[in-house]
């Protein structure tokens, strides 16, 4: 009974997060009111194009935003194993609390495995450092745990690989090692920011497979950030679509792909090249391009490119997320005030 109640409570709740960058030329509202939940054991996919704020959201959650950026509003509530709740935005960015959370509660995998590893330390050095930071293991124990971690991510010959440098490994192996480091302390949430974008498609398949496998084994939640809708369709249980710093739509993956409500989501899905499509047929496109961050349109950020633009409404105020289906929400005036199209 109690277990069921715990499962339906989100592991991480982001509520109205706003991260702004204050620069000489103007203020960039990189994240402007983002909110979503990550549930234990499930995968949340965050999808969007450049400038949508997905990476800044990740950095904000882990308090890795540096000047001139700052979280100006919102809460990021993490539910710890003992049931306690912690608002990550209230912690000091360099303090002990956030550092004990990073790595131990939340693991992070980046896009570029080459630059995520120090070129002058072996994989083993970095692995054991992570392990010893969050546990009482001594050097030898940490080394053994490190070898196990590498084995768990499918790296052959982990005893040999642990003493290698990152540049001695291929892209796929490096990314596996990166995942090993992220998971070395058994976090309950893994945040993966474009983990497979720099990899070949066959290697990508291996890594995604690995991530799913690890999720099943350890019951951890995954927050997967990518611009690749195919990867989202493969991996996510729930999807959040972002545009220019705001969540424009969110919901279960099937609903998003088969019943998208927000015009941006629809247009995006229509415009991606599909491997099953007919050859040499022109793709529907979204007109124009993503506005410059200093030149944000007033009102709904998508209105200059929206096929359902309603003058007088969309360019005056910003829409809010409203329910458009079972656990599905969209931020669009088409659905506000009971207007369902």
């Amino acid at each position: 009974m109690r277990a069921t109640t715990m499962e339906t409570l989100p592991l991480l709740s982001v509520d109205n997060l706003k991260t702004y960058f204050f620069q000489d030329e103007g203020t960039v509202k990189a994240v402007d009111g983002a909110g979503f939940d990550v549930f234990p054991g499930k995968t949340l996919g965050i999808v969007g194009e450049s400038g949508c704020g997905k990476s800044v959201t990740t950095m904000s959650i882990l308090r890795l935003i540096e000047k001139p950026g700052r979280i100006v509003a919102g809460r990021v509530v993490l539910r710890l194993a003992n049931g306690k709740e912690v608002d990550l935005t209230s912690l000091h960015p360099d303090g002990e609390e956030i550092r004990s959370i990073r790595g131990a509660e939340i693991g992070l995998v980046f896009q570029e495995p080459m630059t995520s590893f120090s070129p002058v330390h072996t994989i083993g050095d970095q692995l054991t450092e992570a392990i010893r930071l969050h546990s009482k293991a001594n050097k030898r124990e940490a080394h053994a745990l490190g070898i196990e971690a590498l084995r768990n991510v499918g790296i052959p010959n982990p005893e040999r690989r642990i003493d290698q440098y990152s540049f001695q490994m291929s892209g796929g192996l490096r990314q596996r090692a990166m995942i090993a480091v992220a998971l070395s302390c058994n976090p309950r949430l893994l945040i993966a920011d474009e983990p497979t974008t720099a990899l070949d498609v066959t290697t990508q398949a291996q890594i995604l497979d690995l991530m799913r496998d690890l999720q099943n084994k350890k019951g951890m939640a995954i927050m997967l950030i990518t611009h690749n809708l195919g990867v989202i369709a493969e991996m996510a249980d729930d999807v959040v679509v972002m545009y220019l710093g705001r969540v424009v739509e969110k919901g279960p993956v099937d609903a998003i792909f088969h019943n998208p409500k927000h015009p941006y989501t629809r247009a995006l899905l229509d415009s991606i090249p599909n491997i099953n499509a007919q050859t040499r047929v022109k793709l529907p496109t979204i007109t124009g391009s993503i506005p410059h961050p200093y030149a944000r349109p007033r009102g709904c950020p998508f209105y200059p490119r929206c096929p359902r633009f309603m003058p007088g409404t969309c360019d005056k105020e910003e829409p809010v997320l409203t329910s458009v289906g079972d656990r599905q929400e969209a931020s669009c005036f088409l659905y506000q005030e009971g207007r369902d199209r």
Partner: protein
Amino acid sequence: MMNGISDTIAPNSSPSVLLDVKGLRKFFPIKKGFLQKTVGHVRAVDDVTFHINQGETLSLVGESGCGKTTTSRCILRAIDPSAGQAFFKAENGKTIDIASLPRRELTPLRRQMQMIFQDPFASLNPRMTLLDIVGEPLLIHGEKNAQKRADRVAELLRMVGLRPEFLRRYPHAFSGGQRQRIGIARALALNPRLVVADEPVSALDVSVQAQILNLLLELQEKLGLTYLFVAHDLSVVRHISERVAVMYVGRIVEMAPTADLFSLPRHPYTEALLSAVPKPDPRLRSERIILQGDVADPSNPPKGCYFNPRCKYATDVCREQTPIQEEIAPQHYVSCHRAKELSLIGVAK
């Protein structure tokens, strides 16, 4: 507003061959030691043979290190091939072997073959205006009249969907998609016959990719261009090509018309590649073929078929002998010992 959907571009029916590549090879020497002795070679392009018909789009697809970019650079003579021939049918009707042409005779031929680059930020000189960038090919090839050049540049910009008033602007004022359009305008300035597009949409946002792909299709129809399209994204390849050649570690493992290759692949690598592409539909999640291990090392490829260590259908003959390219169906070529007996799975039509 969204563009009109269902604009089908008819495939070109003229069979005359524009580019005929035979046995192309490019080996990079590996030098070690104080005296820089050559201890081996990276076989970047290892006996590549294909042809492109006039007005057609052939895609070279493969993963990193497969040699597709090197092949395209050899054809354009940005680098010199180690061996092989690349017969190009020039404007005057004569067929010339680009691969063996002496460097100084290349310049007049350059007019007829151009390249679109992958990185829209690095491929334009940031210190030149649009007029300079798109006008440079005109200037080099003899158009001395500044007004005529400006007019032609304006016309090209319009053709790629940019406002001609942007002539005086510098590249830093434009987005990635717009810069790619500028690169396309530059490539088209001299009315080339062959355009090599090296991953032209990989660095662009998803919504912009569609715009650029549509533009390329339109321009091909209007100007009768022939494309050699280099890509790693199979979905993009599906949209733009009539024929596809799949490369692995410097070799072409399979080459066929697009629909055939995607629905009925005959090479295990193609099958694995198609299976690995994530489909943007959660209802299509299926068991995928996950290849073991990493891509073979082009400086030390395996004996026999290069793909054999990762191939789930490999047998002894695969580990011993290099397969030769055979035409297993009309226009469908494959290099696999077991091609005739395997029935492989493609993607749904």
